[in-house]
């Protein structure tokens, strides 16, 4: 059996633009999202949330609410069953927010749950919640790091202790001071909310005093199971979390939030299944957000545009308890060949809930700063934006000295430029007019890391030529069901319609959630490992079977590809897995395996130090490869100089992301990434009132996400790329990549159109008009 493959496994169905296997169930309504599931006896929970952002509850009058028909209970901090532990008492709490509301009379952010009504219908629970009269002793809240009362501090560690708040490579300040070109600028990113179509929802079903099933809108059922086990003091195996379909998450369903445990505790209190879905307004204060933040970037280059230093600082708002902030610096560290780099994070506590990862956390705002500044320097030096990027092309990862496992960025640049017609770009800003409108062309680089991950899968191959493949992964709606069906089909040599792929249940083998772009690469690897287990078993059966063409062969001499076993030295001699299984008389055969993605896969298959035989450079450390996907965005904007409106008129994205599992779903995901980035660039902004620390536009009429009319045809291509180091199939995740660099590409195009640099997202018409009032 050959496991130490040096090239990616052969494919048949993988890569094909297969229609979504869950499409018919979704369009006919047969697919049930978490809030649509009901079990007998289900009752409805509704949260009452705080009107103030800071203070104490002095009384809660539930008398009017309790008189409403159908009310089963009204829970407050005074009568809610206590969890075994609060998140702050859990040793290694796995979610962003460590604060659990409704444990005492404290209020620490606007929209914090203060009561939970359970009633026989949703409508009755909703109305009763409105009738609860909560009185508060309010204090003046802190609304953000801009608040005069706020104090910036060095958090030492960010992201639950995973990253340092200060990182230095080389001697960045000195290098900047001595640089021929010194560019310094500050970038502002508004508060953004994930705003998936499906709101967060929990259905909690106690099946006994110590047995719990939770139907949750979860991007990671294992995470939800573990967090519940921690809070309830129960063994994980007694808790089942199920998520069959997700209507978008973008990160907000990949962490653990108060509504889930509150619903579970409510179900315990009433001894009935309780279902609770956040309202759209509650989605703005229930599941995190992308924090308000400001970045200052000092960029030093040589006279010919080669980077010599990047000095980056970020200031951002965080909650009263946690030091979460996106790690913007990491893309600045690795994207180009820059010898000196530093980043510093400063946070200030405010009366807001903990922010959380939102699609391309860190990379999206970080690349906005980097790619905008680089565009400025290019313009200052009279260099084409593509040329300055090529001059700074990183042949290895300067953040750690490692060679790339694969990188196709030059091909992305070239193909993107060709598709876009970049050579026709007018270099001088403000020269390209279309009637009254100013036309601009901009580009930016995209990149996203391959985060190391692992997971398990189970494959059960039936003698009738069907198979069930299982992994406790999730499908955000991006196509996990479909692409894993394709991977399974090739692993077993079956048609995709013969495969049933099951996910979204902690009863299934443990797999990573959908987040950090790890799901596709990891689950595909897990399925291959499980399939290998099946191969091994069937090969053993075949070599012992007189009727098999492989009779008496050594298993080590047998190879399996696309469901067919054959002698490595005589490929003609062989048969299919199913043929051997049928002859054996066994109705089915099962295998399982653990698959790795990223560094873990490389270490297992290549060894830690034998990374790259061609790597003899001194500055490159041993210890494997640096793993990233790369891409390039090109866009055209029309700016109305009188009205300040910006419209995107053309978009091209070309990406190198390893093996593409399904051209249709992958293309859709990259289009979605561009749209998500365009939203952040041009319109997405949640306003938090400075006096009340409360949002003033917490609904989808007030929080603008792009509509169809905002989006032109988006051309997406993938360049062929093979990467043997990351997993069997050479798959790199693409969930985040498509969004990275989008805001910068838009800003760069606006600069090209107007000669004005907009550094404050979103770039709304008021800001464009203000910029146009200033001299170019």
């Amino acid at each position, binding site marked *: 059996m050959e496991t130490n493959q040096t090239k990616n496994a052969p494919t048949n169905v993988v890569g094909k633009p297969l229609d979504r296997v869950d499409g018919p169930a979704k369009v006919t309504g047969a697919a049930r999202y978490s809030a649509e599931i009901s079990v007998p006896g289900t009752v409805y929970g509704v949260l009452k949330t705080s009107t*103030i952002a800071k203070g104490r509850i002095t009384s809660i009058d539930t008398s009017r609410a309790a008189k409403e028909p159908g009310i089963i209970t009204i829970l407050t901090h005074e009568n809610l069953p206590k969890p075994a532990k609060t998140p702050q008492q859990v040793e290694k709490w796995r979610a962003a927010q460590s604060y659990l509301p409704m444990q005492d009379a404290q209020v620490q952010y606007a929209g914090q749950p203060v009561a939970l009504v359970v009633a026989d219908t949703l409508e009755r629970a909703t109305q009763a919640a409105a009738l609860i009269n909560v009185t508060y002793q309010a204090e003046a809240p802190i609304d953000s790091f801009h608040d005069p009362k706020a104090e910036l501090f060095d958090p030492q560690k960010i992201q639950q202790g995973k990253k340092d708040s200060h990182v230095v490579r080389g001697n960045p300040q000195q290098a900047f001071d001595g640089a021929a070109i010194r560019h310094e600028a500050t970038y502002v990113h508004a508060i953004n909310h994930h705003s998936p179509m499906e709101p967060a929802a929990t259905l909690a079903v106690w099946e006994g005093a110590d047995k719990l099933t939770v139907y949750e809108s979860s991007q990671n059922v294992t995470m939800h199971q573990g967090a519940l086990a921690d809070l309830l003091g129960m063994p994980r195996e007694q808790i089942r979390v199920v998520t069959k379909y997700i209507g978008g998450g973008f990160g907000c369903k990949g962490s653990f939030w108060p509504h889930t445990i509150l619903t579970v505790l409510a179900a315990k209190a009433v001894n009935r299944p309780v279902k609770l879905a956040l309202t759209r307004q509650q989605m703005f204060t229930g599941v995190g957000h992308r924090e308000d933040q400001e970045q200052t970037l000092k960029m030093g280059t040589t006279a010919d545009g080669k980077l010599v230093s990047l000095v980056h600082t970020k200031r951002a708002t965080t909650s009263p308890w946690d030091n979460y902030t996106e790690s913007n610096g990491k893309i600045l560290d690795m994207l180009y060949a820059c010898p000196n780099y530093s980043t510093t994070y400063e946070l200030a506590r405010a009366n807001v809930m903990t922010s959380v990862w939102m699609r391309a956390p860190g990379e999206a705002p970080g690349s906005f700063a980097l790619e905008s500044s680089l565009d400025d320097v290019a313009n200052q030096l009279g260099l084409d934006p593509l040329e300055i990027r090529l001059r700074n092309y990183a042949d290895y990862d300067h953040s750690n000295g490692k060679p790339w496992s694969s990188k196709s960025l030059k091909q992305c640049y070239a193909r993107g430029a060709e598709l876009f017609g970049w050579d026709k770009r007018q270099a001088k800003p403000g020269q390209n007019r279309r009637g009254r409108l100013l036309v601009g062309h901009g580009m930016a680089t995209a990149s996203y890391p391959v985060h190391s991950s692992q997971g398990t899968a189970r494959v059960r191959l039936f003698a009738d030529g069907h198979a069930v493949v299982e992994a406790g992964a999730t499908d955000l709606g991006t196509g996990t069901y479909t692409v894993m069906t394709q991977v399974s089909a090739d692993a077993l040599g079956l048609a995709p319609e013969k495969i049933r792929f099951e996910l979204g249940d902690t009863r299934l083998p443990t797999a990573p959630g959908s987040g950090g772009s790890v799901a596709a690469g990891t689950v595909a690897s897990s399925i291959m490992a499980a399939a290998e287990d099946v191969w091994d078993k069937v090969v053993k059966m075949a070599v012992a079977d007189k009727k098999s063409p492989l009779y008496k062969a050594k298993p080590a001499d047998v190879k399996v590809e696309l469901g067919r076993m054959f002698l490595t030295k005589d490929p003609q001699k062989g048969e299919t897995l199913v043929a051997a299984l049928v002859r054996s008389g066994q109705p089915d055969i099962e295998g399982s395996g653990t698959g790795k993605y990223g560094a873990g896969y490389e270490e297992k298959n290549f060894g830690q130090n034998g990374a790259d035989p061609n790597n003899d450079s001194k500055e490159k450390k041993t210890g494997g490869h640096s793993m990233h996907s790369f891409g390039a965005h090109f866009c055209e904007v029309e700016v109305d100089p009188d009205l300040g*409106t910006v419209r995107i008129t053309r978009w091209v994205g070309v990406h190198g992301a390893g093996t593409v599992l399904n051209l249709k779903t992958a293309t859709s995901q990259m289009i979605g990434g561009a749209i998500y980035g365009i939203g952040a660039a*041009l319109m997405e902004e949640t306003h938090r*009132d400075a006096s*009340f620390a409360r949002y003033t536009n917490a609904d989808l009429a007030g929080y603008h996400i792009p*509509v169809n009319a905002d989006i032109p045809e988006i051309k997406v291509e993938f360049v062929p790329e093979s990467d043997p180091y990351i997993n069997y199939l050479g798959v790199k995740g693409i969930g985040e990549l498509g969004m990275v660099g989008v805001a910068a590409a838009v800003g760069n195009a606006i600069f090209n159109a107007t000669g004005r640099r907009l550094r404050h997202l979103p770039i709304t018409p008021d800001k464009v*008009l203000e910029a146009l009032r200033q001299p170019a």
Partner: protein
Amino acid sequence: MNNFSYYQADKAKDATSAKRADKSAAFIAGGTTLLDLMKLNVENHDQLIDVNTLPFRGVEMTKNGLRIGALERMSDVGEHPLVVKNFPAVSQSLLLAASAQLRNMASIGGNILQRTRCGYFRDTAFPCNKREPGTGCPALEGDHRNLAILGTSEACIATSYPGDLSVALTALDAVLTLENAKGKQREVPITRFYLLPGSTPQKETVLEDDELLVAVTIPQTVAAQKSLYLKVRERTSYAYALASAAVGLEVQGGIIRAAKVALGGVGTQPWRSPEAEKMLVGKAPSEAVFRAAAEAALRGAKPREHNAFKVEMAQNTLVRALSEVAA
């Protein structure tokens, strides 16, 4: 949303009488604003009187102009050939508003009576003089980027009517027909229908408790036929105007004989500008004349920190609209 009783009125008089008898009742047509506000507990009505089966329908040309039944749907009116041909600004204002789903549901009368999108009004956790008189207006110092710069008071700066249709109707001198519980009808020019906030921002129109808006009549004029509605917003569709302009011009012999100008998104009510019209009439259309008119229209503006941009944006919107309609 509180519990309420539902009553489907068969006759106008039944509807208006029921409303007179119950101060807490509300008429419901499309419900696209009302139900939202009830779900937010911003409005609490113990009775909804469904007026959808009442005979206030039809789009027809009369001697006084185009008469539109208040229960017609936005999409039907926006696409009606008589409207498209004779009142392009009205058609455009309807079709640039909301989303297709909302336009199919929302009535003309309901649109004219829609309420502000001010975030402080729509969230009962905030004080708001319009919602709860005397509690204060956090928008004055807070998030007022979308709010008004014309017609404001220290009590309220909300764009009390945030929509589009009434801006076009205001420019074109539309007249509203109101019917009360006695069955008596009265006609009110739309320019006198909306009230400035002053110290009573809760009182938004001259509509009496028992009155139902039953029809809109738009005089047929040359300027109405040569009219245009221009709307500016960061999102191309399904967004309220940051600024908008409804204009109509009658040009004869190279001279502007009549001008109709109203602005949206900038006033506490749809903002008719006689000052701008005065600058236009009698002059030959030119960018300079349009610019002078736009400056006159915004002369009384009281911008604040986050909506100061609206002065220039509204001026430019008006200049653009006039240039396009004159072209």
